[in-house]
């Protein structure tokens, strides 16, 4: 089963290598990994999606927590959380008919057209993984030229935190 896990870590040289090296040598199956600044200076926040059973997830959490630079780990899979990913999709758009159709589709998916070329359109879409997958799927018949995706980021909903389910470093 896929799990979405958040880890907070000190923003120090080599921390990403430590985490990546741990995932590799313990054989954890990582589907996506995003890292960036958190609200606290000096603390980075990583969101990653990992496929594993309960034993694996227990290992993922406890092995990560052992890294000296990691300050907290939280599996948010079972919690009410907002999980989002962004994708930029460059799709072939030849002729006004195709162009119109793509733009209508973008509307339905609340995607933005961020670049227009003679032969292509570039869309920016944000949402859960499924939504992005289905938009890309629908665009395939026009010819998807390039895709870049951020990987998933997550945040536990305020309602959950207020109920005491939240967990902070």
């Amino acid at each position, binding site marked *: 089963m896929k799990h979405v896990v958040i880890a907070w870590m000190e923003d120090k*040289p080599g921390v990403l*290598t430590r985490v990546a*090296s741990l995932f590799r040598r313990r054989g954890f199956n990582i589907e996506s990994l995003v890292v960036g600044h958190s609200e606290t200076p000096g603390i980075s926040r990583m969101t990653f999606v990992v496929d594993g059973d309960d034993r694996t997830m227990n290992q993922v959490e*406890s092995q990560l*927590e*052992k*890294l*000296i630079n*990691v*300050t907290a780990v939280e599996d948010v899979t079972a919690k009410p959380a907002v999980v989002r990913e962004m994708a930029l999709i460059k799709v072939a758009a030849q002729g006004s008919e195709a162009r119109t159709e793509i733009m209508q589709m973008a509307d339905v998916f609340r995607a933005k057209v961020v670049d227009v070329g003679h032969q292509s359109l570039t869309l920016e879409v944000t949402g859960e993984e499924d939504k992005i997958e289905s938009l890309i799927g629908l665009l395939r018949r026009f010819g998807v030229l390039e895709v870049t995706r951020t990987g998933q980021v997550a945040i536990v909903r305020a309602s959950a935190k207020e109920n005491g389910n939240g967990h902070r470093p």
Partner: protein
Amino acid sequence: MKLTGAQIVWEALVREGVEVVFGIPGGQNLPIFDALAKYEYPLHFVLTRHEQGAAHMADGYARASGRVGVCMTTSGPGATNLVTGLATAYMDSSPVVAITGQVATTILGRDGFQEADVTGITMPVTKHNYLVTNINELPQIMAEAFYIAASGRPGPVLIDICRDVQAGQIDVVWPDKVDLPGYRPHVTAAPVEGIAAAARLINEAERPLIVVGQGVTISGAHAQLQDLAEKADIPVASSLLGLSAFPQSHPLALGMGGMHGEAFTNLALQNCDVLIAIGARLDDRLTGAFATFAPKAKIVHIDIDRAEVGKNLTIALPLVGDARLTLELLLPLVRPAQHTEWRAQIAAWRTDTDRRDILAQETTTLVPPYVIRQIYEQAAGSIVVSDVGQHQMWEAQYFPHERPRSHLTSGGLGTMGFALPAAIGASFARPDEEVWVVVGDGGFQMTMCELATVIQEERKIKIAIINNGYLGMVRQWQDIVYEKRYSASPLVNPDFAALAAAYGIAALRITERGAVADAISTARHTDGPFLLDFRVDPLAMVYPMVLPGKSNSDMLRRPLPEMMGGQEGK
């Protein structure tokens, strides 16, 4: 006061109470060594002959003392030579601080002479590591390294210091405390509810068993362990590293379980109904096939490292915490008990093991267990450092240990070449005690250059080479699993006694049983190091044996005396 980076290193070591450092100087740590000569710090530097030896010495010192062992090498090849020693210390939770020189920050990352990415290379085999590019961080990093190495589940920490940092100068502000936001070792007992639940399980058990590992020694839980075992009448099995955590002469002691554990010990493991694992990782050498280990048991697992609990096996009751503190809380909740039937069952299994004892058999050949037992007869109570292979298993079976930290060996990584340097380290930790090295002819040759260190440092260690002319354990597997195809396992050896003589070490070669006791006595009564080259039966086998991937219930047993000469049965 202004200090150079090199001075900060030594001052920090002195502040940490370090008394001995093992290592080798080189191009990128010369400033550190120059400071040592210039300022005469109150600690002793041991020049080793190979950096691997330095790491094992620091590890051996740590295992024998419980304090942090320190090693120091130059960059590049000096540092990469530490890797085996660091991995060894990491697997066995041994507190080591390694300080390596690195090229100057101006060259770093440009493939400079003797540059290697040492923090990158050692990341998976250290508890933590540091690359120091800013001298202002050095005092804090030194303090953190010692704190991390020694606290919680101990382990090696490496500090890679750029050459210009060593040569730089600052006004030092020593840190008054170490505060790491991401490192909060469990130095407390496990939660009380868990402990109460464990007590209920133990109180209801009919066939309880304790299995102990290195964690008992690290935590200093020996007395509490013995109290628990005696109060609730629970037999105590050990992992290889747990052997000196419980006195082996105790009526409840069952010795080592697992791949080469005695049959009665493995049968106890496989038939117990509650298993209390204390400070043991429950790795495959102890458990055999995970799915078949202790199939009737509910397992209580006490370990300071949460990641070890449930890693390999399903644990009924995880108790994450310090072993000693947890046992202190558990003890009053456990009811006094007598497990007469269970003890009688184990005793019956033991009788069968005794019948198969090699030492009880009529033979004139020089079998390794005989040599080991003779060393025990004369030198019981010594610190024994065993290497890795057949002799290591025979030592575990035939040299009972009574005191904590009297049995040192590379259990997790299984590092051949560990014993001689580790014994040198141990001899610095406990200078008044007799230290024996039990080593095979293969492993000895992996680090025998440290004989020179033995002489230079006037170590009085006694070395027993169990010389069978093979990589013996490899040959044993080839015997059993590969139809006796001895692929690359026979050794053509030098004359070890002559070799010792070349170093100025007294030595004897022993080829028959009658000469063993006298030779050991001569070694013990010689004031100085001594090497004994025991030319043992080349084809002796270590039994019992659980083949890899098999269940502990499925052992190859020692042959019964009447079956000698043929292959063993079950």
